[in-house]
Each structure stands twice: as C-alpha cells, then as structure tokens.
C-alpha cells in the first residue's frame, strides 16, 4: 500500500481528552455559629465541624456529628487547649 494507515491520524497528539474529575459534594455550611463573647442560651450550637478542630470545654457538649453546643446559658469563649489545640467554653453570667 502506498499510504500507511495511522489509526490515530486525526487524534490530538497532545492527549487532550475527557476528565475523570468534575464532581464535588454540596457544601455543609460548617464553622462557627456563635462568636467569642456572645451570649447564648442552653442548647445553642456554637461550632459545626467534622472531627474536633475545636474541642468542647466547660459547659459545652459534643454531638454525634462533632457539633459543639452550649449546655448552659452564658457567654462563649474560644480558648487554647494545650500547645496547638483549641477549645470553646461557655461561662454563665453571674
């Protein structure tokens, strides 16, 4: 044959093609829901998270999805826990 077949003659030589990515989940609106110094009621959600980016401190509970909530009415305080961790506490107003 005079003309040899290149089966990919009309393919892009740069390997351009489809991507296998392009998917992501919906955002879950995590993060702080109460600010430092804010007065909150018992049961108020303070911080939504996955895992414990912030640990529960005094008068703060942790839900099954790691949500931190106030156990009592009081003022929110974000504090350090040890060297590199953080916690949040609620202190009742006298």
């Amino acid at each position: 044959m005079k003309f040899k077949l290149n089966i990919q003659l009309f393919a892009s030589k740069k390997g351009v093609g489809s991507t296998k990515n392009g998917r992501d989940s919906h955002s879950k609106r995590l993060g702080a829901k109460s600010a430092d110094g804010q007065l909150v009621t018992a049961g108020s959600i303070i911080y939504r998270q996955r895992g414990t980016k912030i640990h529960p401190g005094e008068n703060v509970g942790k839900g099954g999805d790691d949500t931190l909530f106030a156990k009592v009415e009081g003022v929110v305080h974000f504090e350090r826990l040890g060297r590199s961790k953080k916690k949040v506490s609620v202190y009742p107003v006298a």
Partner: protein
Amino acid sequence: MIQITLDTQEDRVIALTITGHALSDDLGRDLVCAGVSAIGTGLLNALDRLCPNDYELVLRDGENPLISVLEKNMNDVGKTVLQTSLIQLETIQESFPEYIQIVGGYEDEI
C-alpha cells in the same frame, strides 16, 4: 472537530479534504478519529491502486493532519470510490455530529 470539505461538479466529487482533530477521547482511545483515519487512508490507497494517474493524493501526518484528493482526469471508477467513501464518512458523521463536520456536497442525496 474533524472538517471534511467537498467540491462537487455535476454528479461527482472533484475534491475532498479531511483536516482537524476529532477530540472524542484521549490519544489511543479516539474511536471517531480511528474511523475517519481508516476510511480516509483507505480512500487514498483505493484511488492510487485503481486509477493511479487520475487523482492528486496527499496524506500529511503530524500536528496538522491532512488527507486531500483532487481530480485531475475524469474517471468512473474513481467517482464510485469517492462516492462510497463519502457515504462511509457521512455514516460516522450521522452518529457523531459533534466531532465531524461535512462542508459542501451534493444538493440531492447520492
């Protein structure tokens, strides 16, 4: 997109060029490219073997690939071969219109 350009006169194709990139998939998996490449190269070999002096035949590989057929002398066998190849290309184009465009051609169907 692969672009197929036709020049016709009366009832025959007098010039045909195939250019572009199918981009239907990655290199090595591009099935549309494979189909057009096979039909185009087969067309060149058929014309070269059956009516060697009646067509100017060009195949260019690389980043800007090209298949070109240009009639030099009228030939009934060549006319039939070209019509057959055109129908084959139209068959692929019908299933993959987003990857192949055919420009020019007959006003009526072959």
